[in-house]
């Protein structure tokens, strides 16, 4: 079968191009390792600075109490599920130096406790607004500030409520859909890193096809009985095999570094592999419009950025719904395969869903793979095999 012959040839060529092969195989596991190192072994600890001006107050039978110190301890006690601290708290004295740290993003937030913090916390609730406020300072453009603010507020609120002996303004309870529990940042970022690495296959899929053109071997193949389906199918199978290996390696590295999944990693790997097939098909379409390796690197950035930014792989994206299919919404970004992979991986890894639960997403990925592959065969025949 000619498809298999092209597959074997492409694999051989790829195996003999170790630099490019290792880029594809190792890139994602390496990203995961790097992120783990940057995230301090699994979770980001946000550095916050505290200027504790609290003078304390004497309480009958307790001597002098300093609630500022207690709040600092509460901030330090905030932990991820794996026991890692959420906040790295540094008590400082110099406000100017602290502001400079915020500007340089050496720290995410600054808390300034007023001198009569203890008196404020022990005052009746209706009198507290008369005291100087606790100041929370930071760079509003820094995402870390937003996260550190929420975390700090959560820690402080609990202490303040226990001191004042009052309940929250209303009764509320957090519920997590699908049984999802709070996960470390590392757990949350691994799927996104995986999808981004899969998207890079656009380039590695297009390049072998362009090499056939640049080395003029395509001319030799054009007078043979090889069809566009044979060539594109064989190259796709080779890239799929390499991509699948990369997906499995990525999960193995992630697990070795402490990655936790609510669902089956085999199911997640299946989603990753089907997503790989769809991205490979997009890579084939890209190759149809390129005449050189340089063109792949320039023209290829268009699908790369489309898949990265508008699929929700890099960050959550608003869905522009076009129509409804039963209970399903079909949005414009649903034509981008990673959109479905992002949703499916989240369901499996964070909510413990099974493969059956992500059947719709898998079906959409498979359908998009077929559509893009068929389009690539049709366009390739017209743009690369005709003169």
């Amino acid at each position, binding site marked *: 079968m*000619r498809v298999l*012959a092209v597959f*074997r*040839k492409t694999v*051989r*060529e790829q195996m*003999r*191009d170790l630099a490019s092969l290792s880029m594809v195989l190792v890139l994602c596991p390496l990203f995961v390792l790097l992120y783990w190192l940057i995230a301090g072994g699994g979770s980001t600890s946000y550095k916050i600075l505290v200027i504790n001006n609290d003078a304390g107050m004497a309480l009958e039978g307790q001597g002098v109490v300093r609630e500022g110190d207690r709040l600092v301890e509460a901030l330090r006690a905030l932990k991820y599920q794996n026991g890692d601290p959420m906040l790295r708290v540094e008590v400082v004295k110099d406000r100017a130096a602290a502001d400079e740290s915020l500007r340089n993003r050496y720290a995410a937030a600054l808390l300034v406790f007023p001198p009569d913090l203890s008196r404020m916390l022990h005052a009746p609730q209706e009198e507290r607004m008369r005291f100087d406020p606790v100041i929370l300072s930071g760079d509003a453009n820094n995402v870390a500030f937003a996260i550190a603010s929420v975390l700090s507020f959560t820690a402080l609120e609990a202490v303040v409520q226990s001191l004042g002996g009052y309940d929250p303004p209303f009764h509320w309870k957090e519920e997590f859909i699908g049984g999802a529990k709070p996960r470390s940042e590392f757990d949350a970022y691994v799927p996104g890193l995986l999808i981004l690495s899969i998207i890079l296959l656009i380039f590695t899929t297009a390049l072998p096809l362009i090499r056939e053109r640049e*080395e*003029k*071997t395509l*001319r*030799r*193949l*054009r*007078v*043979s*009985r*090889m069809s566009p389906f*044979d060539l594109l199918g064989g190259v796709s199978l080779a890239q799929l095999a390499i991509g699948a290996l990369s997906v499995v390696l990525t999960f193995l590295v992630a697990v070795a570094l402490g990655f936790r999944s609510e669902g089956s990693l085999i199911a997640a790997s299946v989603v990753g592999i089907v997503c790989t097939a769809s991205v490979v098909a997009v890579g084939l379409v890209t190759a149809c419009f390129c005449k050189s390796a340089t063109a792949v690197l320039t023209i290829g950035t268009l699908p790369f950025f489309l898949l990265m930014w508008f699929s929700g792989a890099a960050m959550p994206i608003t869905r522009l719904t076009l129509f409804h299919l039963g209970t399903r919404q079909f949005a414009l970004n649903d034509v981008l395969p990673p959109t479905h992979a992002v949703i499916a991986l989240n369901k499996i890894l964070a909510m413990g869903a099974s493969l059956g639960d992500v059947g719709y997403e898998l079906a959409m990925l498979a359908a998009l793979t077929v559509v893009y592959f068929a389009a690539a065969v049709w366009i390739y025949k017209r743009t690369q*095999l*005709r*003169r």
Partner: protein
Amino acid sequence: MGAQPRRTVLEASDLRKRFGDIMAVDGLSVSVAEGEVFGLLGPNGAGKSTTINLICGLLAADGGEVRLFGEKVTPGAEVVKRRVGVCPQDIVVWPKLTCLEQLVFTGEMYGMRAAAARRRSDALLAELGLAEKRKKPAAMLSGGMKRRLNFALALVHDPDVVILDEPEAGLDPQSRVMVREYIRAMAARKTVLFTTHNMDEAERVCDRVAIIDRGKLLILDTPDNLKRTAGRKGEGGGTLEDVFIALTGRRLRE
């Protein structure tokens, strides 16, 4: 010289191809018989490679037609894929594949089974003096060896018609003699069409030669007749090169 021409295998009639303002092939008509070694001679830019591309169906003609074994050749024609082997002018090999791997791969692309392609590849490598290099990647071969491999790739599927675009270019004298003898030996079983501007090569190998320039056929005959006719007309007459220069002029080409 060689086998007597039999039935017509290849027939080009009033073939035309234009690229912008340039008429690359202009009303060319030739026919090649079975078992014949047919040379297409012309200076650079004469239209030799375009003619070959039209014959192989790599280009669509603007006018006229090509028939192979009686079947009209169109881009992607099945008759070409089934019965023709093409050796391009450039060295067109897969640098990372070994000699054997690329021959087997090419055979498979022509529909051969892997085992048959391997047997045929081994035989070709031995015949063309590449047996010792069968497991070497093409990138590691010398220029002459790559040329021979380029030649072998056109033959791996055992085609009935072999089209060679300047097969001796870049070969050392030993390799040139080897390829020349190989072409002559092939003529017993195959029809060979090849382009060259090496007159010595054409004279030694071809049963008939056509000299073309600016896409037009200037003359077509056996090398001996060409030399005789040209000699009588006072257009040189010593060698085929004299005939060629007399017909195409001394002006340098691109």
